[in-house]
């Protein structure tokens, strides 16, 4: 076996990034093996087969009934020892990176995070993202088993039917690993979130104060969207960090991002760049956000935003 994909799921709900990892794995070897952790993931075998998994190795253990970085990482490490793959791919997500780091530490192997391309040779040459995607690093990877996570959005998920034969892998987990299994969950309230909103109205330093976000809230509310902000805004205490769009905040992907008074520094751009369309409203026509946007209005957001709201109300009568 050459390539093994660690399936990311939450109590049996598949993370879409897994399908991207399967697509990436098929570029390394057409025969792809998948690894699912916990019996809740057994139901995923069919979908994994549709996306190219020739064999789905299933691990069942009481400690895998919910997510736990140590139990998952140790299970991956034991599966790697048992199955001896040449490479292991996981998702370049919070969980994927955490689990593969755990496995790498336990196997004493290198681990390359957030890879966008792999050149398989005697010494692997791998390209990975740095700075949240604004810079690429070419690196060599020397290891008996290559551990990689696949950068989100670097590969497109696609169907490629394979057998999806199921097999069982036995793991022996130290009960102490229960210490990092999720102890309690608070489900998110239903509704539009920053990460999933179809429209985001973002405000930057130029908004000027917490109160001055009211017109942005009003516009977002009218259009069924939400308000986001830049890191400068959260650092000033004007808005909560949960509203921050950026490398260390939320990555958004709305149909339209209206970036108001945001210069577009790397930190922010990385979080906004997956937006389908961007409209920048800025006094500076040379601002990075303006030059990278699809559409722009040159002007003071404090005048432009209320004018847009008024125009919407006028048309709606």
């Amino acid at each position: 076996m050459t390539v093994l994909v660690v399936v990311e799921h939450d109590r049996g709900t598949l993370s879409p990034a897994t399908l991207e990892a399967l697509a990436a794995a098929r570029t390394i070897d057409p025969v792809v093996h998948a690894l699912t952790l916990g019996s809740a993931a057994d139901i995923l075998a069919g979908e994994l087969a549709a996306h190219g998994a020739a064999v789905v190795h299933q691990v069942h253990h009481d400690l895998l009934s919910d997510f736990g970085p140590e139990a998952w990482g140790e299970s991956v490490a034991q599966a790697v020892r048992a199955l001896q793959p040449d490479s292991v791919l996981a998702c370049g997500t919070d969980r994927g990176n955490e689990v593969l780091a755990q496995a790498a530490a336990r196997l004493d192997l290198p681990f390359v995070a957030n890879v966008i391309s792999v050149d398989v040779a005697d010494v692997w040459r791998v390209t990975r993202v740095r700075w949240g995607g604004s810079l690429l690093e070419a690196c060599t990877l020397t290891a008996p088993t290559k551990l990689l996570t696949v950068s989100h959005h670097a590969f497109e998920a696609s169907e490629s039917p394979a057998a999806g034969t199921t097999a069982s892998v036995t793991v022996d987990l130290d009960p102490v690993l229960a210490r990092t299994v999720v102890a309690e969950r608070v489900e998110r309230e239903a509704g539009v979130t920053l990460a999933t909103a179809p429209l985001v109205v973002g405000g930057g330093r130029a908004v000027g104060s917490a109160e001055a976000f009211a017109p942005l809230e009003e516009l977002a509310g009218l259009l069924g969207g939400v308000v986001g902000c830049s890191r400068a805004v959260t650092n000033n205490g004007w808005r909560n960090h949960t509203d921050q769009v950026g490398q260390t905040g939320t990555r958004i992907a709305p149909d339209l991002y209206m970036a108001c008074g945001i210069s577009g520094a790397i930190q922010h751009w990385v979080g906004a760049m997956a937006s389908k369309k961007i409209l920048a409203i800025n006094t500076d026509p040379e601002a990075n956000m303006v030059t990278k946007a699809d559409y722009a209005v040159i002007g003071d957001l404090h005048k432009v935003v209320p004018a847009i709201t008024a125009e919407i109300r006028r048309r709606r009568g």
Partner: protein
Amino acid sequence: MRVLVCVKRVPAPGARINITPDGLAVDTAYLAFTTSPHEECAVEEAVQLVERHGGESTVLTLGPAEADEQLRYAASIGVNKAVLLPIDSAEWDPQRTATAITTAIRTLEAADGPFDVILFGNESADAGNFQVGVRVAHALARPIVNGIKGIEVDGDSLKARRESDAGVEVYALTMPVVLGVKEGINLPRYPTLKGRLGSKKIEVGQVVPEAVLGGQQMVSLVQSAEQVSQTIMLGNGPEAAPAVVDLLEELGILK
């Protein structure tokens, strides 16, 4: 409570990151440096933990001599002690870094006792290798959870919260623990004048790091393809509003 926070000195780029002509480093000639954002919050959290529960905090970095600046910044907002693991370059590979930090922690703990809490940033802003904290925790045989946005201490136990797609996950841990912290866990304070002056006087300890190269070695840095966009100008000032609303209708956002 004894708290250790591990940080990394990183450049503070603006709109674009330039690379040196040899392709091996970020051109920092015109850039300032800062503490990687998640770690800036980890430093604040270390100070708050000691403010709430008593004890002492220590900041540690593996980096060039100039990383003294980030150690003293941490001291200026209230961290008690600072340790530099000096290296000749901006960074080491993640395995080598983790080995060096593990050895340094063992040295510090042998001298002054174990740390109850060790904080890392979830990932560094520049390299983003997502593994140094996990490797250190594993080598020290301590639990680690990443992505932490809330810590509540109760005696020897601790609850750590993190966000997921589904909501919030809570982890119940017993100290000693290692946690990978994310920005948003707190709002870091600014140093006071007194803090700044005091930080100039603290003694920065040194542990000379020794560790072999890991299996991942950087060959070169490459600029990622710049998103080229022909920006369509919708107009100037509030007079552009009708054009914006036309666009909202065209994109199906205003129905």
